[in-house]
């Protein structure tokens, strides 16, 4: 049985996941596959852009948030996926060699009106580096199965 059900996420709860080291190799590999812009691929080209140096694709940052959520709690939960993301801001560049953490705060919790076996949880996420610099923020609603209810 999973550890985390909808009932276990209470408004105001805060958890911190990670840390996770982001390497130059993975930044460049992600960009080469999904976002091949010079600012994500090449130091010299990146230094001429607004980012002022090589930095991860915003979609890589988002994907890393997802992975840290997955490792942090989703994989050991009754997750039923997510209908979307209210907002994501790429606040500061994610540079090679940065050690990131993810802080998750439960904002709202409500049962599903249409599906009694499910509840909805709205969370705010903040990606931080070792100096607590804010790299990205995200607000998203996730669906979880309720304790004692068969999620089918």
């Amino acid at each position, binding site marked *: 049985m999973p550890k985390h059900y909808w009932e276990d996420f209470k408004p105001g709860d805060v958890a911190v996941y990670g840390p996770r080291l982001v390497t130059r190799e993975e930044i460049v590999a992600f960009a080469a596959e999904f976002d091949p812009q010079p600012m994500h691929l090449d130091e010299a080209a990146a230094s001429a852009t607004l980012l002022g140096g090589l*930095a991860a694709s*915003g979609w890589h940052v988002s994907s890393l948030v997802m992975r840290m959520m997955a490792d942090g709690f989703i994989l050991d939960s009754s997750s039923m996926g997510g209908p979307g993301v209210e907002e994501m801001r790429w606040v500061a560049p994610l540079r090679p060699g940065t050690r990131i953490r993810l802080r998750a705060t439960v904002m709202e919790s409500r049962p599903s009106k249409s599906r009694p076996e499910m509840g909805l949880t709205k969370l705010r996420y903040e990606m931080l580096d070792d100096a607590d610099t804010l790299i990205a923020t995200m607000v998203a609603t996730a669906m979880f199965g309720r304790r004692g209810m068969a999620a089918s």
Partner: protein
Amino acid sequence: MKYFEDIRVGDRYALGSHIFTAGDIKSFASRFDPQPFHVDETAAERSHFGGLIASGWHTATIWMRLMVAYRRREMEAARARGEPVAEIGPALGFRDLKWPKPVYVGDTVDYASEVVETRRSASRPDLGLLSILSTGVNQDGDTVISFVSTTFVERRPQK
């Protein structure tokens, strides 16, 4: 890309389509979103989705890839005509990202983006801010992703 001044609300970019294969779906998900219904066919069949589905983040990153390819084609065409090319990016983020329907193995998703807002940057007089609504529609006409993203775009150099 065009300069900020030459971009109009309502401008539309047809970005092309992508076919999501099982290998494709599992490759992305194993790295970034290893939930059972994204990485394991058997588990996915038992889930409420009824089959393997792409991570929503995968559906989003494919939009980015098609957008970068589209911009590159536009840039090359502009250069061939001897026209200057405006710098675009980085993006500031996005809002109202929705995944209304899952993307299943074999689905073809057709992507497009439309300009919904243009405004000058308060902090950078040489730049404008461009907001676009992007959508992905599957072979049955169902929207599988939509979001509004905002990015910097260069203004026409002042004479």
